[in-house]
């Protein structure tokens, strides 16, 4: 047996057999688990949106979502309206949160396509919050998040997440010390949209100045930080015309 493992025929047969076995195994696994994984992702989305508007079970410095069992009920309790904005129209759609932002961004490259922008309107302690999903590029892979604004377009909370940023560096965008800095930041200078930049050496590490359009960047995560700034500038900007109409 051992001596003919070098022959070309055996090599090809072995390779084909291996591909067949591994392929079948993975395909079977993927299809049988798909439903559960999609459901987990849907729950996560609801948790993220609620997190951005300040509905979570955070400890002193930990990030804790509302638990899986109650997230559905909490979501329908706090999110009063979901809109889909296309151009200047805003239509109500109770499943707007299921819109795939990534797919919309790809489709929007076609100039004839009217990009659908989902916007979630929630109410917490009598304050109406507008939650905007954003998505962009980090160092290794996608980054995304949700930004909650009040009707004066001041940030009331954010949630960021990433697919594969460097553990311990870029992955810290989903830590409290980074996300909490965004609270209270302005995004408009008078009437012009400025966004929020993750800036190095901004001489404001305590983040006392809320109108400088800057938060303190993470050391060792320059590209991820730039990705955050770019994602906010690019995606949040699309909502500004609509959000401005709320300001009056």
């Amino acid at each position, binding site marked *: 047996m051992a001596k003919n493992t070098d022959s070309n025929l055996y090599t090809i047969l072995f390779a084909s057999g291996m591909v067949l076995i591994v392929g079948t195994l993975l395909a079977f*696994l993927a299809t049988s688990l798909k439903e559960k994984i999609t459901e987990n992702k849907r729950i996560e989305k609801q948790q993220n949106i609620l997190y951005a508007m300040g509905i979570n079970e955070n400890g002193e410095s930990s990030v804790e979502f509302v638990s899986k069992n109650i997230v559905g009920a909490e979501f329908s309790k706090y999110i009063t309206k979901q809109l889909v904005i296309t151009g200047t129209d805003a239509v109500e759609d109770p499943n707007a949160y299921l819109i795939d932002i990534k797919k919309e961004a790809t489709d929007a490259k076609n100039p004839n396509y009217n990009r659908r922008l989902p916007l979630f309107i929630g109410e917490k302690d009598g304050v109406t919050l507008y939650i905007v999903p954003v998505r962009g590029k980090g160092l290794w892979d996608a980054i995304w998040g949700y930004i909650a604004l009040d009707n004066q377009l001041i940030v009331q909370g954010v949630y960021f997440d990433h697919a594969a940023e460097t553990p311990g560096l870029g992955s810290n965008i989903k830590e409290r010390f980074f996300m909490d800095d965004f609270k209270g930041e302005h995004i408009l200078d008078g009437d012009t949209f400025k966004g929020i930049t993750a800036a190095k050496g901004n001489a404001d590490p305590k983040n006392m100045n809320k109108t400088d359009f800057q938060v303190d960047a993470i050391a060792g995560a320059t590209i991820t930080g730039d990705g955050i700034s770019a994602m906010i500038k690019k995606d949040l900007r699309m909502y500004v015309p609509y959000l401005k109409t709320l300001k009056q």
Partner: protein
Amino acid sequence: MGLLSKKDAKLITDPLADNNPITIQVLGICSALAITAELKASIVMAISVVFVLAIGNVVISLIRNIIPSKIRIIVQLIVVATLVIIVDQVLKAFAYELSKTLSVFVGLIITNCIIMGRFEAFALANGPWRSFLDGIGNSAGYGIILIIVGFFRELLGSGTLLGIKVLGDPIEKTGVYAYGYENNGFMLLAPMALITIGIIIWVQRSRNTALIEHN
């Protein structure tokens, strides 16, 4: 260890010190640089590699006699990748929060040279039980160095351990920061991981001069 013969026990204890994969065999340096800025990431990576290497070694060892030698590297790669994907998918379905923590490590595990190195150097020539022990030993040796480096980098770079501020608050100037101490941000960057590993190698070889290579 009454369970293991002396020879088998050596498979576990050797890689922990005198034949450590990082400091002696110089394998797995890339991931040791990439993810040791935080202690938590080091621990997660260490545990993941123990699982993958132990199981992978057994699988490779079981099929070692039927792998065509011309494509053995590809076969090894497929085995690692399949194992990691299976674990990742199962976690995504049944332990979603855990999978979020681990997902960034998936790519780093597949490309970890310790895994390929042990498949190639050990599992292809030894039985499943010995390969299993070798896998545990080597990944534990790798994990120990990772945790040591992670400990010093997080402590000196951010002044925290597992996210807890052990040295006081650098912005509010409490704890040691009140006496003028500052975090060394350079510790968070990859070059300092290399220097930290260099120091570990130096300390280890000066304590045991038999490990020094002579050219």
